[in-house]
């Protein structure tokens, strides 16, 4: 411990429970409860699909930039045999065509640092007729490409790195060991590589710290690093290959992916730790001669050889410290019901009302349910938000006869008190906020659903701007605050999602699966959503769930039981709760089951 303090400048933290956020990555703490030293480490990297290129092709030039700001230049299709001058820019979601390069070509090198869209170099490559090998260099300023000083030795499939003013060009076909450095005005030959190589080698780094791995002739596994002065051989790749691609802006974070082995194309990705290579996750579609760029934590691989070329993009993520999440069954709530209201979080939840028209209220402490005082007005399809000790039950339906109730009640941890009614009584609304600053929206005041929105200021309700798409049967469970709320999905089978900013509703990214009577809770930037009824005949209930991060929905683990008309409780996307609900078939097929969502940091116990 004395050594640790001297090295880190602080002592090891002693706490009774584990750190639970990404800031704990790399930190060491002593858990006084378990008696272990612990830390948070990244989970295994993974590939996902990204936006497809507008033009499918193969043999594109080396990629330039970052996962969220990348350029794909040139390429080749056949038949008909065509060399491309196309350039597309990737923003982390989709590709957009930008200004063409002047000389159409394939298999060139490129580099653009962190800002390829305003400062990129593209060099070398191939285009028929013979001899075909190019030495031209083009520079991009964000609007057009300009030819600048040629590289000294024309080459196909060179490896590049660095920036528009300090770049390296190494290796290439015809097989060469020549290395050139660009200083912003001219290329200068420097020390040769130890191992001449061509036909696509993985690369990463800058003009002063660079790594090459793989390539041809044959199928190479050797790697070597450049320190700004000379090349040094390092440990070999595990899988020898040519036509590989690299990612990483520094040597210790280099990754090599895809390529051709003696047995065919592979999707194998290997990561370098500064000393040796280790296999990590494969791309989903093995291929070679594609383009790649980015960092060791966030890269992309796109295009690739497969006549007449492919448009596929895959994104690499090696940044997450979150372990995969999962649903697990919790202890059943006492009262079987569907369409209750919910408030609070997984370890301090409040569930009230529901079908068949009950006012029963139960508290959950993360382990067991305790019945407390009933609501004053029994009802189902009630909207809930707030906390376990400051809950809100708004509107709903009572029967017989079927009556939309405008009643609103506040819970103080012990009992319910009536406050002022909403202006329009209805069922199946969604709600968010607190007892002094709430908002409800949507729902069904009659046979037709609407988009009415009302705000509560602690005393009275005021009608404000409607949702853009009126709907009932919106997600149940609290969804943020009065000035940052979400309305998700709804009747009949909607995928619409709208965000409320305290003034108006804006349509945002649709949820992938259209459902109504779904369950969700969280905030506008961290929501857990799922379950619901998808329609069809016979009607099916859904067990899928998604996490929303403020811009995109990510499918995550399915729940154990499909259902609708439950309610959700959640403080974060790490710990969620889905309570009660209804199974397929009749309206009396109600549940009292509970499922708990858990997605925690990837905590490791430090062994000797």
């Amino acid at each position, binding site marked *: 411990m004395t050594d640790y303090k001297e090295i880190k400048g602080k002592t090891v933290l002693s706490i009774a429970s584990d750190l639970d956020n990404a800031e704990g990555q790399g930190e060491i703490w002593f858990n006084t409860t378990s008696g272990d030293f612990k830390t948070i480490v990244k989970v295994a990297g993974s590939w*996902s699909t*990204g936006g497809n290129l507008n033009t499918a092709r193969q043999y594109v030039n080396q990629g330039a930039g970052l996962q969220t700001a990348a350029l794909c230049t040139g390429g080749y299709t056949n038949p008909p045999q065509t060399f491309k001058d196309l350039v597309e820019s990737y923003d982390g979601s989709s590709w957009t065509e930008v200004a063409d390069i002047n000389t159409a070509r394939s298999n060139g090198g490129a580099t653009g640092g962190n800002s390829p869209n305003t400062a990129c170099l593209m060099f070398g490559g191939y285009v028929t007729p013979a001899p075909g090998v190019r030495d031209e260099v083009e520079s991009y300023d964000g609007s057009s490409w300009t030819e600048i000083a040629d590289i000294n030795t024309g080459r196909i499939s060179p490896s590049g790195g660095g920036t528009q003013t300090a770049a390296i060009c190494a290796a290439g076909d015809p097989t060469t060991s020549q290395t050139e450095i660009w200083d912003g005005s001219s290329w200068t030959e420097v020390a040769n590589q130890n191992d001449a190589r061509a036909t696509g080698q993985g690369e990463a780094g800058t003009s002063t710290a660079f790594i090459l791995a793989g390539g041809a002739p044959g199928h190479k596994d050797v790697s070597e690093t450049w320190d700004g002065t000379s090349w040094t051989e390092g440990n070999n790749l595990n899988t020898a290959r040519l036509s590989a691609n690299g990612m990483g802006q520094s040597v210790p974070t280099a990754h090599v992916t895809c390529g051709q082995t003696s047995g065919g194309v592979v*999707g194998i990705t290997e990561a370098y730790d500064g000393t040796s290579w280790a296999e990590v996750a494969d791309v*989903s579609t093995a291929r070679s001669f594609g383009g790649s760029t980015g960092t060791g934590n966030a890269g992309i691989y796109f295009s690739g050889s497969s006549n007449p070329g492919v448009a596929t993009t895959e994104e690499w993520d090696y940044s997450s410290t979150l372990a995969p999440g999962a649903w697990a069954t919790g202890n059943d709530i006492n009262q079987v019901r569907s369409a209750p209201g919910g408030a609070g979080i997984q370890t301090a939840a409040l569930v009230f009302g529901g079908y068949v028209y009950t006012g029963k209220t139960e508290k959950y402490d993360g382990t067991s349910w305790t019945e407390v005082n009933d609501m004053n007005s029994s009802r189902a399809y009630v909207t809930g938000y707030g906390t376990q000790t400051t809950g809100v039950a708004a509107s709903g339906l009572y029967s017989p006869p079927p009556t939309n109730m405008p009643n609103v009640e506040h819970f103080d941890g012990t009992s319910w008190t009536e406050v002022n009614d909403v202006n329009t009584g209805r069922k199946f609304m969604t709600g968010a906020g607190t007892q002094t600053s709430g908002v409800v929206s949507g729902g069904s005041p009659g046979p037709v659903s609407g988009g009415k929105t009302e705000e509560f200021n602690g005393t009275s309700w005021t009608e404000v701007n409607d949702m853009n798409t009126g709907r009932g049967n919106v997600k149940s469970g609290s969804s943020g605050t009065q000035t940052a709320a979400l309305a998700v999905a709804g009747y009949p089978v909607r995928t619409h999602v709208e965000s409320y900013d305290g003034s108006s509703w804006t349509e945002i990214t649709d949820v992938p699966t259209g459902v109504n009577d779904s369950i969700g809770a969280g905030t506008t930037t961290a929501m857990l959503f799922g379950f619901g009824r998808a329609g069809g005949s016979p009607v099916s209930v859904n067990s899928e769930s998604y996490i929303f991060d403020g811009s995109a929905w990510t499918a995550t683990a399915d729940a154990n039981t499909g259902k609708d008309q439950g309610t959700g409780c959640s403080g974060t996307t790490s710990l969620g709760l889905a309570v009660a609900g209804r199974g397929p078939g009749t309206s009396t097929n109600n549940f009292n089951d509970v499922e708990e969502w858990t997605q925690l940091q990837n905590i490791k116990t430090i062994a000797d």
Partner: protein
Amino acid sequence: MANDIFNYCVATNTGKGFITHDDSRRFWISGQPANVWVCTDCVESRHWVARNNGVSKTKAEAQALVNTEVTNSQNAWDALSDEAKALTSGRPGNVTLP
């Protein structure tokens, strides 16, 4: 993987969101010619197929689709000029699904 059970489907890669990082972390998935996808068989991968409007296939059906696509690619490669062949990474090889 030798003892794994797989499911097979045909699905179009629609880009972002088709395969998420969460999908990749939960099950093995591999794209093959003819839009054929092979996944380890589990609840999550079956829902992935449904989410992407995939059409489930038997292994034999999937292999037949792959064979047809590969044969077409091989025929297209055979029809190329020698110069054009030299620009490729070689004749497309046969693919045997796991």
